[in-house]
């Protein structure tokens, strides 16, 4: 029953998204919508490893940037269409997640987090030194007119991002309800106990790291088409790493709706903020809100809501 409801909901959202370019003429809607949806994908992807398994990835920006550059590589190299770019990015991101996970997840979670902190610097160094994808100057990507259905390239990448968002939410929802989610919840609570009870903890961690890495990179892949110019500083910016962490933690990390709520809320506020306040103050506020949430509301808005409902029932 609930499976069917999920599928119907997803199809409905996709149908609405496909109709949007025919109905909405204001291009800003697509520009803003792309950013919000990109953050939905990023927050959901981060939460698969961070929320479900409890392993913090501080280097989401590295994965997103990798996705952008995988797309540029495929575009420059063979003029690949967008969906090939996205698949290529998924492959690269999944491989990076698996590799990082294999080297660091066997010991303690803290090492994985520290390695991801350093990852962004290293990857951006590689890109700066690699002239095929533009090096430090950046790369210009001029996409051809996609199809008759989509009147502009921005409405096209908006729809692509919508597909990715629905896909990652479906993935998170499915993982949460399957044995994978239960296994991850067990290892989050107590890794040794889970291992003793027969949960294949290392396999599950590596699976989560791979899926999370692949989705993060996929979120970056349509960006070169969207912005038509990418350079290393913005591709590997702290914004992605911070928001990937802040959105699920503010929304709630225990189920798939948390990152969705956090992403829509925070990207909405940030989008309103960019026209009114400098970006540094924006970062400062997000940082302070993040600290406030991890100290006072560890389960995010969903946790606060659950507590409020419980209080209401008691009184």
């Amino acid at each position, binding site marked *: 029953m609930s499976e069917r409801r999920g599928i119907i909901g997803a199809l409905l959202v996709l149908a609405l998204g496909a109709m949007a370019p025919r109905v909405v003429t204001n291009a800003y809607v697509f520009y803003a919508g792309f950013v919000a949806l990109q953050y939905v994908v990023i927050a959901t992807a981060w939460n698969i490893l961070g929320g479900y398994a409890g392993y913090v990835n501080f280097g989401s920006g590295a994965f997103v940037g990798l996705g952008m550059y995988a797309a540029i590589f495929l575009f420059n190299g063979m003029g690949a269409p967008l969906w090939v770019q996205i698949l290529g990015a998924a492959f690269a991101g999944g491989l990076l997640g698996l590799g990082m996970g294999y080297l660091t997840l066997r010991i303690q979670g803290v090492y994985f987090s520290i*390695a991801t902190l*350093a990852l962004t610097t*290293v990857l951006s160094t590689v890109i700066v*030194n690699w002239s095929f994808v533009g090096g430090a100057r950046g790369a210009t990507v001029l996409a051809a007119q996609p199809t008759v259905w989509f009147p502009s390239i921005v409405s096209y990448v908006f729809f692509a991002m919508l597909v990715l968002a629905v896909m990652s939410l479906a993935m998170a929802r499915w993982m949460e309800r399957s044995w994978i989610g239960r296994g991850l919840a067990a290892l989050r609570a107590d890794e040794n106990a889970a291992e003793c009870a027969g949960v294949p903890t290392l396999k599950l961690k590596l699976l989560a790291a791979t899926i999370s890495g692949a989705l993060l990179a996929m979120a970056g892949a349509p960006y070169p088409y969207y912005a038509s110019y990418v350079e290393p500083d913005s591709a590997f910016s702290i914004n992605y790493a*911070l928001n990937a962490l802040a959105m699920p933690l503010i929304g709630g990390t225990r189920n798939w709706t948390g990152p969705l709520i956090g992403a829509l809320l925070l990207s909405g506020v940030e989008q309103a903020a960019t026209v009114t306040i400098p970006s*540094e103050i924006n970062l400062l506020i997000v*940082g*302070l809100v*993040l600290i406030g949430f*991890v100290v006072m509301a560890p389960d995010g808005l969903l946790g606060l809501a659950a507590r409020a409902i419980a209080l209401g029932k008691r009184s």
Partner: protein
Amino acid sequence: MTLELALNAIVSGFLLAGLYAIASLGLTITFGLLEIPNVAHPTFIVLGAYCAQFANSLGVDPVVAGVLFAPAFYLGGMALYQAYYHSFERRGRSNTLQSFTFFFGIALVLQVSLILAVGVDLTSVRAAYIGKSLTIGVVTMPYRLVVPFAIGTVVGAGMWLFLTRTRMGLAIRAVAHDADALRIVGLSPTRAKGRAFGIAMMTASLAGAALIVVSPVDPFSGTQYIGRTFAIVVLAGMGSVPGTLAAALVIGLLESLVVTFVGATWAPGVAFAALLGTLAIRPSGIFGMAR
């Protein structure tokens, strides 16, 4: 010619190791001994650099400034530990998603505050020894590297003596080993940890002064040091002071050789490769015991 280059690279790597050692010693205590992943430490070093720069603009030598600001950093470290203790350790939530994120948030807020306060331009200090160098044969040693090397050596040796010879140092190592046992002998684990955190933060003030003597600093300078310092602490074997000095030497030499023979842009990759390599091959580090 190549030999001369190699010789100079080795000497400057050796000197650079002094800076890396003092930058990592704070983490050897907080992360290595207390297992508190203070990812904000490199950002506090940058704060220390700006404090030294501020004092220097009033005519104080940057290294003296580093010493003068150390007590303030000690108190700041104690306060930060109290915040961490009340938010996480006391509620049994240490080493969780939230406690890592707490320090990440602190680092971010500090970095952005620095940007808002001083802008994004590089700043440097003035001192008599900066710009001069000591030449022995074919080897040139700039004093701006010799001075931080001296600070690193003195603080490293002092830290080792402190941790092995004083009551407070022993209490700090004991709390890292077994906090409950400390309670049984009538000492407060929280107080020992708070002091340890304060001392770790003091090294950030000195490391900041050393950092700005070596090269100009901007608010983003800390990001380069996250990979480097954690690589050194892990390679050292968690919590080992002699290990930290040895690991700093390894990373300093490797980086210097890469800068000379491969290219300066590849230097950030050295520490990262060392970190992943250590975790994959020998997670207990050079001087560490199996854990």
